[in-house]
């Protein structure tokens, strides 16, 4: 895949999110991207959907469940949520949905900022390998990967999807 195919995926995601919001009758949502890839995609979606609240960003490093195994990276970007989460509908954006652990950590962090009315998950790529009962409402592209295969988003400009085979 190259840069060319990421842009249409994002446009398709924006359309799906719009329909989903309409279908669920949700107004005045806020958008939050998960560092790093999720923020890149969220920036574009935030613009396409003309969301009023400033884009929120999350660095979930402090909420990871494998901290005691891998330790801390001192350069954690500060999470920025410049709006009240209380009673807000949140659209959570990540690049790749794999095990579901990142999304779990992100939801834990969101709840430390307030009590959102709802959280909707939108991802650029959904791949196999879920370890938690977490699913996305909006998916840019579904990719079936074998064991040893990984998908990686590089960016922010240009955005490109790569499928890597680690042998």
């Amino acid at each position, binding site marked *: 895949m190259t840069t060319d195919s990421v842009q249409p995926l994002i446009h398709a995601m924006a359309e799906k999110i719009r329909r989903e919001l309409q279908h669920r009758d949700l107004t005045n949502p806020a958008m939050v991207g998960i560092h790093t890839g999720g923020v890149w995609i969220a920036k574009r979606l935030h613009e396409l959907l003309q969301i009023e609240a400033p884009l929120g960003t999350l660095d979930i490093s402090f909420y990871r469940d494998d901290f005691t195994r891998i330790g*801390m990276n001192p350069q954690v970007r500060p999470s920025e949520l410049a709006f009240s989460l209380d009673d807000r509908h949140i659209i959570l954006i990540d690049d790749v949905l794999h095990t579901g652990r990142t999304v779990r950590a992100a939801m834990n962090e969101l709840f430390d900022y307030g009590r959102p009315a709802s959280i909707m998950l939108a991802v650029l790529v959904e791949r196999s390998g879920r370890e938690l009962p977490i699913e996305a409402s909006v998916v840019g592209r579904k990719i079936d990967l074998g064991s040893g295969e990984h998908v990686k988003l590089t960016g922010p400009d240009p955005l490109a999807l790569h499928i890597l085979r680690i042998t």
Partner: protein
Amino acid sequence: MNGPNLQLDEKGRLRHFLTTEGLNYQVVTDILDAAESFAGVTEQSVKKVPLLRGKTIANLFFEASTRTRTTFELAAKRLSADVLNINIDASSTVKGETLLDTLRNLEAMHCDMFVVRHASSGAAHFIARHAQPHISVINAGDGRHAHPTQAMLDMFTIRRRKGPDFGALCVAIVGDIMHSRVARSQIHALNLLNTGEVRVIAPRTLIPADAESLGVHVFHDLSQGIRGVDVIIMLRLQRERMQGALLPSEHEYFHLFGLTRERLARAKPDVIVMHPGPINRGVEIDSKVADGPHSVILQQVTHGISVRMAVMSLAIRSQTTLNE
């Protein structure tokens, strides 16, 4: 006292935090970067992250302290650790044997980290040397030797106000350098960050004879010493450590070395004034300066929490990788 390398693991990462002496630029910068990350936690409605959930941290305070103990406690709680506060009677002389007994008991309670404040220099090193390998030790002030987390929160305050280029800064440390573990730790940290110029300003009786070997410029006149500086760090006049006739009187000290608005005018217009607390108003600093627009004294207290969160999580990291 053991060498400072006791505090780094074989990969050069923080394992204990005992002194700023002998650390390196990378470790010091990692602490400051991590503290920056933790500063955001205070803005959450739940001021807590689950990083150290299930860890037990014992605050061993053999010497009285309110601010340091409280901020260590708060830092540990914001990291979701369980905290034991143990105040050991400061008046009783604590012998090595008793200290080891205390240590063994706390180890038997499965503590993961000791935060130690002690009136004897080297106490934290002693504990780090004798504690089980999975335990990290943080020095919260030992005798006249070191107070590394205070020094790091001061560096953090300077970096936040003046930017990351310490090479462009002139920093003056004023007061009782002789008895000050804070000054010692600050000077090492400022040197590691390649600070442009470090000055120490004090009466001859309150400055160690070998001060210049630490790479600082010595001044005995406050008005002269603070000319053109970017940062002034005032030290507390430590009445309880003062023995013999080092000073004529506190009144006399204020007259010569007290920071007043008139004297402050000689520093750079955007100078910041720091103080580790507690302040002796009217002894080393005038209230108008301590509460004035240049003062960042209360911000230092707030930063103390983020910096201590950083040190605790970095030291625990090395400890976890130790088990691999």
